[in-house]
């Protein structure tokens, strides 16, 4: 289980040169904060949803190479996608990460099947570089932090639109 499995080149690249860093004015953009209570990493996702499309998205906060590169790749992956498409990417990514975490759920087998099905739905592309994180369980929460935050952002954007 070498470090190279964790720190793939593309991850280090996104860490060194994060994409879509910055802020959006909020409102109109939705601003959501995420914390990793274990290590103190903080992510801020600024989300501009227009006509059901993720029109713009910026990332703030600070954290380790895994959380930062995951956020950067996430931004690249969902920007311009429709909300349902973005949600499908989130599901697929979290399914990839859950292959280890599901141990914590009682229904391990069901969960594994469900995860496989959700991953099949979407092409994760570059994001697959983060698959190695699964072998370092403590770091999974680093990788999923921005995704959980985005999910919350989409919920809030939906609620804002509905309300």
């Amino acid at each position: 289980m070498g470090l190279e499995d964790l720190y793939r080149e593309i991850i280090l690249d996104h860490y060194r040169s994060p994409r879509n860093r910055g802020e959006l004015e909020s409102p109109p953009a939705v601003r959501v904060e995420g914390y990793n209570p274990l290590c103190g990493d903080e992510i801020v996702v600024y989300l501009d949803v227009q006509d059901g499309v993720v029109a713009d998205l910026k990332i703030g906060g600070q954290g380790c190479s895994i959380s930062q590169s995951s956020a950067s790749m996430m931004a690249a992956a969902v920007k311009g996608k429709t909300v349902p498409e973005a949600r499908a990417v989130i599901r697929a990514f979290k399914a990839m990460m859950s292959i280890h975490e599901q141990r914590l759920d009682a229904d391990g087998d069901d969960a594994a099947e469900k995860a496989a099905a959700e991953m099949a739905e979407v092409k994760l592309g570059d994001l697959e570089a983060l698959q190695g994180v699964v072998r370092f369980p403590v770091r999974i929460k680093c990788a999923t932090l921005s995704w959980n935050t985005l999910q919350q952002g989409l919920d809030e954007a939906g609620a804002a639109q509905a309300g």
Partner: protein
Amino acid sequence: MTLDVARVQKDFPILDRAMPGGGRLVYLDSAASSQKPQSVLDAMTRYYETTHANVHRGVYGIAEEATRLMEEARDKVGRFIGAGPSHEVIFAKNGTECLNLVANAWGRANLRSGDAVLLTEIEHHANLVPWLMLREQLGVELRYIPLGDDGHLDLSELDRLVDGVKLVAVTAMSNVLGTLTPVRLIADTAHAAGAVVVVDGAQYAPHLPTNVGDLGADFFAFTGHKLLGPTGIGVLWGKTELLEAMPPFLGGGEMIRDVRLDGFTPNELPWKFEAGTPPIAETVGLGAAVDYLEALGMDAVRAHEVELTGYALRTLAARFGPDMTIYGPTEPAERGGVISFAYKDIHPHDISQVLDQSGVCVRAGHHCAKPLMRRLGIGATARASFYVYNDESDVDALADALDATSAFFS
């Protein structure tokens, strides 16, 4: 599957210890605390010798491994009691803390002055005092399901008692009488009345196959040291919706998501209720205890205890007749392996003292159930209780030692 007690006994190092009188240890106090098999001691020692580090926060190898061991123990314990997701399993220091957690966190959020809580007359102090404290602090009303003269709870007034109560807290098995209570029936009645159901499983989980769903519990508490596990570990299971809606209990590290100088945000389950460094080695030990019991099979454990309790009830009746009063239900199938008794007019304290000369360990006292003692009209009982390592020879040793006691005091 039946229990091979002779083989089981070999797994418990303390049973080999030399006794002052030269005899063997006849340990009949497992209702107070059980002995530990070698595998539990080994699991803890191995943990300390190879893996110890603080959990949940460390990136490095042994910290990750320690975290994995602890969370695996949580999974195991959850499966052992038929729990759903593992985040419903919360580790505390003993069964008492678990019940205090519910009384405090659920109670303070949901109970107001005048609200009623229903308990029973046979509860252990652990399931009485936390509610008595809420009575003092919040002014809640406490009601009690009475004990019938047959050693069972008297449910004839249950509908009236349950009417309007917000919470029902009941032991699944009495630590004094051995009585198995009709938890499911009480839970269904309580739920129909809109109440939340807390089950004290301290005496139940170690001895009977346990499924929190089948019992109808909303919360279920038990303690590691009575279940072949180490001291310093208790388990609270609770339903996700209830746990999520509760404020935290103790505050500190692990249980927070964020802390500012003017406030804090709690962590997610189960850590929200696990403040500070948890009893890590103890969870590992408890996991090994659960493994041990599952290898024996909880059905076999229960069958063995029913059989042994039957033997004990018959033997004691045959040998001591009217000189002995045995409290609790008379049918072994309706009770656990806990036999509280009075013998002649010898005080339980004196009985226990004299039995000790023969290496026979029984408890004497009120067994942390003073209201039950008052209900029975006595101050104390002597209590012999069984577990997987006890057999008929232990019952015989008890009876022989009782003869010696009688001789001594006559």
